[in-house]
Structure formats: structure tokens, C-alpha cells
């Protein structure tokens, strides 16, 4: 009996091993660095070796490489990408036009991804290179380059109070305005984070002014925020709808071809999208920068929604996904919170109360603090 069981197990195991590993290669130019992502349809072992102008990844299984629509002309640093399968082992080689250094190399789960951030190697002063020999026994220079730099602990958070200026957002029956409520909660939340966590908090607006969605995302990207929290108040055609909900970006709801293209090319937004305010900023903006952060965004959304349920005592509408324009273009964990419904009478009454707004800010703060603790624990 045991032999038979073993036989079936071996059969399954060999099928799993022989089943080709699908490997999707993506590359994006982020200005300061190029991000290369190797995504598998399951986890895989890999070995990296690199030289100044090449990174090689060896995977000890047969891989079915999908290079998709990488457009090398959009990648100033990448010269070419090649892949082959030799004796049951898959080899991926990325060749660069100039000497590079691997700034970061890390793995992300669900889906399994191996990520490299590479940047052009800063050219050392000629006299140094000419006159300073490598100290004996210091080991090959390349080994130092391959050492992954640690992820940075969260030190900057971007708060995004929805709407503003002529964009009123939702309007309640009693003429209470979404734009004012979101700003009030954002100001409270900013104070909490700064005073209790000592982190840098930037906001996309701190007064009643209209800010385009592109500008909001680019403010967060430019300031290298590591978390983006968009605060909104909901409204529905269904008057009975009430409660709080937290969203992160959904990819399935939009055009997969466009998503794939944007995700792979990570092209900059066309200039026509810039507004007068955008002109003042050096836009760092990608159509689908959020793609790489969905798992973290989902966890952030869960932490915040749990706290909202606990503190606000409103109906729990849960964590949801939708293709939000402002979230899609942020390159960091990002969520959009709908605190309550202005279209619902009881929710509207509560939104007029300062203690309710205090509680909303406190709940979001609690969720943020929990996410930071989780995120920072990954760094240890």
C-alpha cells in the first residue's frame, strides 16, 4: 500500500516539476532607476550573478518566458533581454547599455515576483580609479553590488483629502460638503501621525483648493511617500446605503490589454493631462505604478477597515477593489477610504459631529500604525 501511495506521490511531484514555469518579464523606467520584475505563476528558486553590464538569473526548472510588450526604446538603461532553456535550466540575461548597480533585489508574494531595481553606476573620479588599487582580500567588487540594500522603513506618508475648490464632491441633503469633511479628517489624521509616530506627513491639499487627480498622485510620488491615503465621503443612488468601506486598486475591472501595456511599459502620462498646477511639478507619474503594490495596499486596506468597524460603529461594508484613477498612479501602498454616506440620513447626521470625525481620524491612524508595525517587521 505504501509503495502505491509513494508511486502516486512521485507521479504528482514529477508532474508538478515538469509543468513549465510561466515567467513574465517586465521592466519600467522610473527615472532614477529601472525596475525589472520577473513574475512566476508559482514560486521558484533562482540564482543571480551579475557583472557591470549584465544580470543573469538562473532558475533550475524549465521556464516558459513571456516577454510581452517590453519596449526597449522606453528603457534607456536596458540594451537587450535574452532567455533560453538549457538542460532543464532556465537562463535569463539582461544586458545594459552602461555600467549599473543593483540598488535593491527582493521577492514579493502573490504573485511570486523577483524584483531588481538597477541604476546607472555613478562614475568614480578618474584619479581614484586610476590610483587606488583594490585592497587585497577585500573580495570581488561584484559581490558587494549584489548584496540587496535593505527596504527603507516608512518615514513619509501622503494624505489626500478628496475633492476641494470648485470640485465639491458629494453634497448632503443639508448642503454639507464632502470636500470640507475630507479636509477636516485629513487635518486631524496629520496631527495624530506627526505627534504619535513622529513621521513626515505631506498632504495633497491643506486648504479649500482644487487639485487634479494626476497632481495628487505626482505629489506623493515626487515626495517619495511610502503610503498614500485618500480620504473620501460616499454617496449612492440607494438612500439606504450607509457605512464605511476601504478600497484598493482593482486590475480586473479595466481593460487588461491596456493595463498590461501600461504595466509593462509604465509610460509617462501624456503632457495633455497636465494642468496648470502640474506645470509647477516635475511629474513623476505612471499609469499603473500601483501594480507592484497591490498586496501591500490590500493589507493596508484591511487594517484600516478593521479599525473603522471598531471605532465608528457604522455598518461595515468591508474592503473592496475598484479602478481608482488617483490610486493607480501612485508608486506605494495606497488606499481610498469612504468614511460614511452623505446620501444616507443617519450617516449624514454623524458626519456633522466633531467626535465622529475625531473617531474617523483615530481609526485610520490605528490602521496606519498597525500597517507600519507589520511593514517594518518585514525589514528585520
Amino acid at each position: 500500500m505504501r509503495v502505491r501511495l509513494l508511486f502516486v506521490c512521485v507521479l504528482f511531484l514529477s508532474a508538478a516539476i515538469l509543468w513549465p514555469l510561466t515567467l513574465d518579464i517586465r521592466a519600467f523606467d522610473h527615472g532614477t532607476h529601472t525596475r525589472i520584475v520577473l513574475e512566476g505563476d508559482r514560486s521558484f528558486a533562482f540564482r543571480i550573478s551579475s557583472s557591470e553590464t549584465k544580470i543573469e538569473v538562473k532558475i533550475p526548472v524549465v521556464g516558459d518566458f513571456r516577454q510581452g510588450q517590453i519596449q526597449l526604446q522606453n528603457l534607456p538603461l536596458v540594451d537587450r533581454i535574452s532567455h533560453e532553456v538549457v538542460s532543464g535550466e532556465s537562463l535569463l540575461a539582461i544586458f545594459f547599455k552602461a555600467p549599473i548597480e543593483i540598488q535593491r533585489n527582493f521577492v514579493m508574494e502573490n504573485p511570486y515576483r523577483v524584483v531588481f531595481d538597477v541604476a546607472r553606476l555613478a562614475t568614480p573620479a578618474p584619479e581614484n580609479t586610476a590610483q587606488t588599487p583594490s585592497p587585497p582580500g577585500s573580495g570581488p567588487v561584484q559581490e558587494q553590488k549584489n548584496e540587496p540594500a535593505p527596504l527603507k522603513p516608512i518615514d513619509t506618508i501622503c494624505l489626500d483629502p478628496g475633492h476641494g475648490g470648485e470640485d465639491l464632491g458629494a453634497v448632503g441633503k443639508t448642503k454639507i460638503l464632502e470636500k470640507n469633511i475630507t479636509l477636516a479628517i485629513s487635518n486631524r489624521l496629520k496631527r495624530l501621525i506627526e505627534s504619535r509616530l513622529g513621521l513626515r506627513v505631506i498632504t495633497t491639499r491643506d486648504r479649500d483648493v482644487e487639485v487634479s487627480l494626476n497632481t495628487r498622485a505626482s505629489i506623493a510620488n515626487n515626495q517619495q511617500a511610502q503610503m498614500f491615503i485618500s480620504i473620501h465621503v460616499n454617496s449612492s443612488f440607494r438612500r439606504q446605503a450607509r457605512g464605511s468601506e476601504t478600497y484598493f486598486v482593482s486590475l480586473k475591472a479595466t481593460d487588461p490589454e491596456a493595463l498590461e501595456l501600461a504595466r509593462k511599459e509604465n509610460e509617462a502620462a501624456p503632457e495633455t493631462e497636465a494642468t496648470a498646477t502640474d506645470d509647477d511639478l516635475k511629474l513623476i507619474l505612471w499609469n499603473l505604478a500601483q501594480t507592484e503594490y497591490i498586496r501591500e495596499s490590500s493589507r493596508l486596506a484591511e487594517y484600516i477597515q478593521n479599525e473603522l468597524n471598531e471605532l465608528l460603529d457604522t455598518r461595515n461594508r468591508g474592503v473592496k477593489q475598484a479602478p481608482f484613477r488617483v490610486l493607480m498612479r501612485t508608486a506605494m501602498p495606497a488606499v481610498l477610504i469612504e468614511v460614511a454616506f452623505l446620501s444616507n440620513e443617519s450617516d449624514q447626521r454623524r458626519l456633522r459631529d466633531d467626535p465622529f470625525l475625531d473617531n474617523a481620524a483615530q481609526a485610520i491612524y490605528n490602521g496606519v500604525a498597525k500597517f507600519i508595525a507589520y511593514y517594518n517587521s518585514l525589514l528585520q
Partner: protein
Amino acid sequence: MKRKWMWTLVGVAALFFVIALVIFLKSNQPGPSDELQIIQKMTAETGEVNELIRVKLFFYADGWTMVPRWREIVVPQNREDIYKKFVDLLLSGDSDRLAPVPPDTKVRATYFLRPQETLVVDFSESLLASFPGGTAAELEFIYFFVDNICYNFNEVKKVKFLVGGNEVRTLAGHLDLEKSFFPDYSYLRDE
């Protein structure tokens, strides 16, 4: 010896089962339920015979889900006009269920882009002025049209929204309307 072969067969069958399961899970996308059926009906007054199609429209009931109502549409001479008629029918609403559309919203035109399998629905400009705002309202509006259209027309795989003949970034500051939308049938419920 016989038993050994039997176990081998069981193993191979199990392997095929796993492969089939993987393929099934990878391709398990919800889709329209039926092909549209053309019915011929005679109008009593004129004796004219019309071709009709029976469509299943979904309107919002309590909560997040939409429930079905059956309607009939006279097939227009130009087959492409059926989409506009269908959207007009959605806009006309239902007596006891909710159509999440601001009052006075009109559809200007519909275009079916066959190579992209995309139906473009162009609404009147009044839509933006009268839209109430809120993420929930945007989701209700968008999936009301996308789910109904894709459910009833097999050839339409996604829907693109225009307002006043132009692309708009969002309806009320939330969902990205520059993209086309695929249906999300989790909003639909059969009664």
C-alpha cells in the same frame, strides 16, 4: 501485475484531472448566459410582423445586487442600432427597481468597435452636471450599464463611456473612465 497497471491508470487519470482542474480554474470567467433569441410578433393594429428580441435587464434591488426583469426590443433595420435601443431601455428604468442614473440622462449614440469587442456608449453632457458624486454612485452607474450590456450581447466584451462625444477622466472624481470596463457579474443575482 494487473494491480500495478491499475494504479498506474489511476495515477494518470488523477494527473489528467489535476491538469483539467488547472485549465478550468484559469479560464473560469463569468459570461453571458444565453444567446439572444429573435421572436416574431404581429402588431394587432397594423398587422405588421416585427422581429423582437427578449432581453434580461438587471436593476438594483436592496443592497448591492441587481435582479432581472424581462423586456422585449423590436429589432431595428440597422442591427447596430439595437445597442442604443437597449441603453434607452435601461435609462427608462423599472417601476419598482432602481436604475442608478441621474434624471434626464440621455444616450447620444452607441458604437460597436468589433475588433476591440467594445461598445462605446456616449451620454449627454447633462450626466456630469447632475451626477451626485460618491464612489458608490459611480460604481452603481458604471456596472449597471456594463453588466447589462455584456450579459445580453455576447459579442460585447467591454464597455467604454464617453460624455458629450468626449473621453472624460472620471464621472465624479474617482473611477478611471479613460479605460474600458469589463463586466463584474458579482453585482447580478437571479431571482
